[in-house]
């Protein structure tokens, strides 16, 4: 249990550092992947809804605090609900094959961004949810899906001795 906490803590910390340093450099036309979201998705898949909801809430809150200007609670709510959604497909409860996993990453992104943009529209009276989803979320989700392939690549191509 403790090892699991440290492992996921390390993954989130690494994702956080990469998100703020490397990711802006690899952006394409202003579209950057969201590594924290990808990490949250896999946490939900491996550990279920409870862990995903808690982590999503605090992760979102941290994002709200450190990504000014933002509405406090906006990311917290979207990450909580997307963690809750992704947690439905917990590997302990059901078998999720690779292709479905990739599709799920995309849908989780959409859930997260839909909540995010709805809050934004309500609070600021600006922008359209559908327009933002198509213009921003879809490319971002597609780009992030590439990073969701990493665990699959590790499982598929890394020698057995490298696996834990």
């Amino acid at each position, binding site marked *: 249990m403790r090892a699991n906490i440290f492992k996921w803590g390390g993954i989130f910390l690494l994702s956080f550092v990469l998100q703020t*340093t490397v990711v802006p450099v690899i952006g394409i036309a202003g579209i950057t992947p969201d590594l924290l979201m990808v990490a949250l998705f896999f946490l939900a898949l491996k550990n279920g809804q409870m862990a995903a909801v808690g982590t999503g809430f605090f992760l979102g809150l941290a994002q709200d605090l*450190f990504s000014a200007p933002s509405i*406090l609670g906006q990311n*917290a709510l979207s990450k*909580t609900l997307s963690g*809750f959604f992704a947690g439905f497909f917990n590997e302990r409860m059901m078998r999720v094959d690779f292709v479905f996993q990739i599709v799920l990453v995309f849908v989780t992104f959409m859930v997260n961004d839909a909540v995010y943009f709805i809050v934004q529209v309500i609070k600021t009276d600006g922008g359209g949810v559908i327009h933002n989803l198509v213009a921003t979320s879809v490319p971002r989700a597609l780009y992030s899906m590439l990073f969701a392939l990493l665990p699959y690549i590790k499982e598929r191509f890394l020698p057995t001795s490298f696996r834990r």
Partner: protein
Amino acid sequence: MRWILELIVRYRVIVAVLLASGLSLRLISSPPDLQAKTARFLAFSFFYPLQVTFDQATKAKNIYAENHLLKSEVALLTAQVAQLKDEKIENGRLRRMLDFEERTPLDIIPVSIVARDPSPVLKSVVVNAGTNKGVLAYMPVVGEGGIAGKVVQVMPSLSLVQLIKDPLNRTSILVRRTRAVSILETENGIDYFARFRIHEDVAAGDTIVTSGLGGIYPRGFPAGVVEKISDEGDRLFKKAAIKPGIDIDRLEELFIVRQPPQWAAFRAQLDSLGRKR
């Protein structure tokens, strides 16, 4: 009471979602000043370690960008410094030229060197003035410190200057102090010398000036300084090593003295004598 706790434990995920969503919505709907206060409280109490990590990550990212920026600035500044140094040197040269131009009673044409003799031993240079500025063949060319050579070929906007470094270029000189006359020569384009009769009074440190006898250079123009005297076992002559007044290898700007050769007036008569013969 017990059944409530059991219900919470049983539906803990739903409760957690509702709690987290409720808290988020509470934060979202709170007024901006309360949001700011809450953000400040959370940042300083719970998220301080994360903030440190964030700061370090941002700093690392900034250091990378700053390093990149500084490198390009260093390259730019190095180029600017090199250019300024060059301009400073040029400025000094031009100032000295201007000073010389005002000081000298001669009618001179300031010129710049535009091409050099590609031979290993530099013998001639091309300057940016020709017939368009009234340059004539055999006009003397001087630098601020002394004679440099003479014009040997004139084109519309360029002239070829044969430097004193050319072994074929010999200049009539005299020692300013004792008026002993000789010829400034060089055999290799590096060492300059003049031969004086053994009894002539010439010493190291004497200033050598043009004698005006060659008909090209004006009389009394500085040519160099005697460095040392050696007789080399010769009973008739002694050899004076001479350091020219200008550094021939580092010429950039020169002056053409607007003075046609003094023998030009006699040229027609000399030519006619030749024809008669």
